[in-house]
């Protein structure tokens, strides 16, 4: 029962998302392209894409259009909006709008890196475990249980307390937290594929194990893989922003959305903008990625149903 993966924001049965490739079924060359194409036709996915595009554009091009540098003193601390600073000054008298425009890039690249490393490792572990089904499977899954027993934020804090607030460490520890969660899903999805005839055929021909795992198994579990990518991205953003918000991410005086919330939260009653802008941006970003993920999950199941008929 504990093999069930339930810590997903999108709780549609993922087993249903494995494309049924029975004997005689035409194997699509790139099944993931079909899923993405179907996903884009769903309204929610489009809303999500729109939101994410806007937030990413702000983070990427923001530094180019910011009226001030992020560390420049422009007005008395916590002054309200004026013509020079449209969202006022923060607790140290710096321009809220400029700091907001400069502060998005870090959370974006860190979350993307953590997601790619975590999902990549998880897919590797999950597929190898599903294919080996012997002592290696047991060792990998038992190891996963240990990492799973730490709430991800606690694991991050434990690592930071030991090694210090290093950015690479935060990326790595978020990825390490993702890997076993992804591995469980991928193992579950791959277990069905392992039983299929074409895997046995590949074994009979004497294909290398690595070739079977990544050439035969991987292309048949792309739908849960896409869903996991979206889901882990949503969680990565939340976790990395949270670590920054707690003060263990980027260090002052860098402009960073999580850190901005931390620096200004005590003056929230006087100057709400310096907290509201980064909170809105992080919230919109996670909502956007989750809407996209939901669209992908729906599209993946739709494809499965079509093939069943």
């Amino acid at each position: 029962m504990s093999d069930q993966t339930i810590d997903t924001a999108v709780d549609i049965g993922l087993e249903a998302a494995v494309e049924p490739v029975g004997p005689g079924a035409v194997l699509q060359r790139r099944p993931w392209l079909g899923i993405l194409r179907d996903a884009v036709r769903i309204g929610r996915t489009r809303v999500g894409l729109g939101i994410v595009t806007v937030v990413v554009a702000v983070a990427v091009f923001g530094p180019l259009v910011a009226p001030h540098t992020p560390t420049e003193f422009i007005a008395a601390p916590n002054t309200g909006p004026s013509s020079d600073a449209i969202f006022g000054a923060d607790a140290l008298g710096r321009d809220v709008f400029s700091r907001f425009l400069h502060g998005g890039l870090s959370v974006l690249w860190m979350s993307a890196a953590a997601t790619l490393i975590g999902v990549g490792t998880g897919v590797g572990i999950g597929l190898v475990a599903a294919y080996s089904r012997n002592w290696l499977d047991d060792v990998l899954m038992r190891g996963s249980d240990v990492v799973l027993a730490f709430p991800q934020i606690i694991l991050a804090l434990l690592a930071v307390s030991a090694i210090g607030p290093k950015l690479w460490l935060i990326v790595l520890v978020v990825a390490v937290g993702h890997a076993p969660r992804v591995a469980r899903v991928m193992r579950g999805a791959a277990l069905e594929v392992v039983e299929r005839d074409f895997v046995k055929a590949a074994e009979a021909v004497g294909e290398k194990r690595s070739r079977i795992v990544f050439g035969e198994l991987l292309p048949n579990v792309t739908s849960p893989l896409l869903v996991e990518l979206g889901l882990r991205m949503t969680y990565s953003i939340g976790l990395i922003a949270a670590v920054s918000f707690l003060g263990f991410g980027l260090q002052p005086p860098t402009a960073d959305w999580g850190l901005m919330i931390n620096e200004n939260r005590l003056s929230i009653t006087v100057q709400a903008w310096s907290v509201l802008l980064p909170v809105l941006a992080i919230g919109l970003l996670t909502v956007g990625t989750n809407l996209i993920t939901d669209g992908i999950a729906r599209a993946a199941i739709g494809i499965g149903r079509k093939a069943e008929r």
Partner: protein
Amino acid sequence: MSKLIWRRLALGLLTLWLISLVVFAAVLALPGDAATAILGKEATPDRVAALRDQLHLEDSVVSQYLQWIGGVLSGSFGTSAATQQPVSELLADRVGNTLFLVFVASIVAIPLSIALGVWMAMRRDRPVDHVASTVTLVLAALPEFVIGIGLVLLFATSVFQWFPAVSLLPPGEQAWEHPEVVVLPAATLILAVTPYISRIMRGSTIEVLESEYVTMARLKGLPERTVIWRHAVPNAIVPAIQVAALQLAWMAGGVVVVEYVFSYPGIGAALVDAVANRDMPVVQTVTMLAAAVYVVMNLIADIATIMVTPKLRTAAR
């Protein structure tokens, strides 16, 4: 049945032991000399020596581990490197506050989300179901500190001023003596976990409502209320138990951020302070507690699942 439960218990203990190794390893990972790393470069040699002694740094790694785990098992968690207070004394009041917060949040969130899930399932594909499903999707995506700060902006500062923005307590008093400080932190946790449980509950209720025995119960002419609450919900609740347990376990991490948002005097906020001060004995104790809560919650969920699933209950008897 008992065989399955014993197996789960044994696995739980094994996991706890492996976790203790990871938590212990954190001290070994400190760069350079652990005592200097904790106290900082300005520390007097006397204090460094005292801390080295207290962490048993002169002994071998194995004996360090045995001393530490022996202390944890007998309830003595060492001395805080920052305040020189015993960790158990430092955390005693705070544990109660955190437990009270999690208790209030779960006692509201679990029935609420189960009812919400069933309600959504009964109105499947109608406009209200779509609205509720979008709202839960949005809430599930939001990081807990975003929800918390949203609540502060709405109910403590700009719009309404109903509750305190920070949950400060007079020294020596506990959270349950001042219920108003618990409202917003608990609401944050409730909003964070309800979407997950209610979405699972909706899905499994829909599945059960399509089953033959529910059709049978309807054909027998049973009132809809009996069909739902006597026949459908008890079967649909099994996946929800698992998710609810996972969400309660998640709270062990979620409270850290939520307590920090509201400066709530619990062990989560203490952990953030301890990490900032590199107060390793406190960090180790709180992480060990959080992981233990997770393992125990999963164990309870597994056992509860075995109890309520007739097939498992009678299997391996």
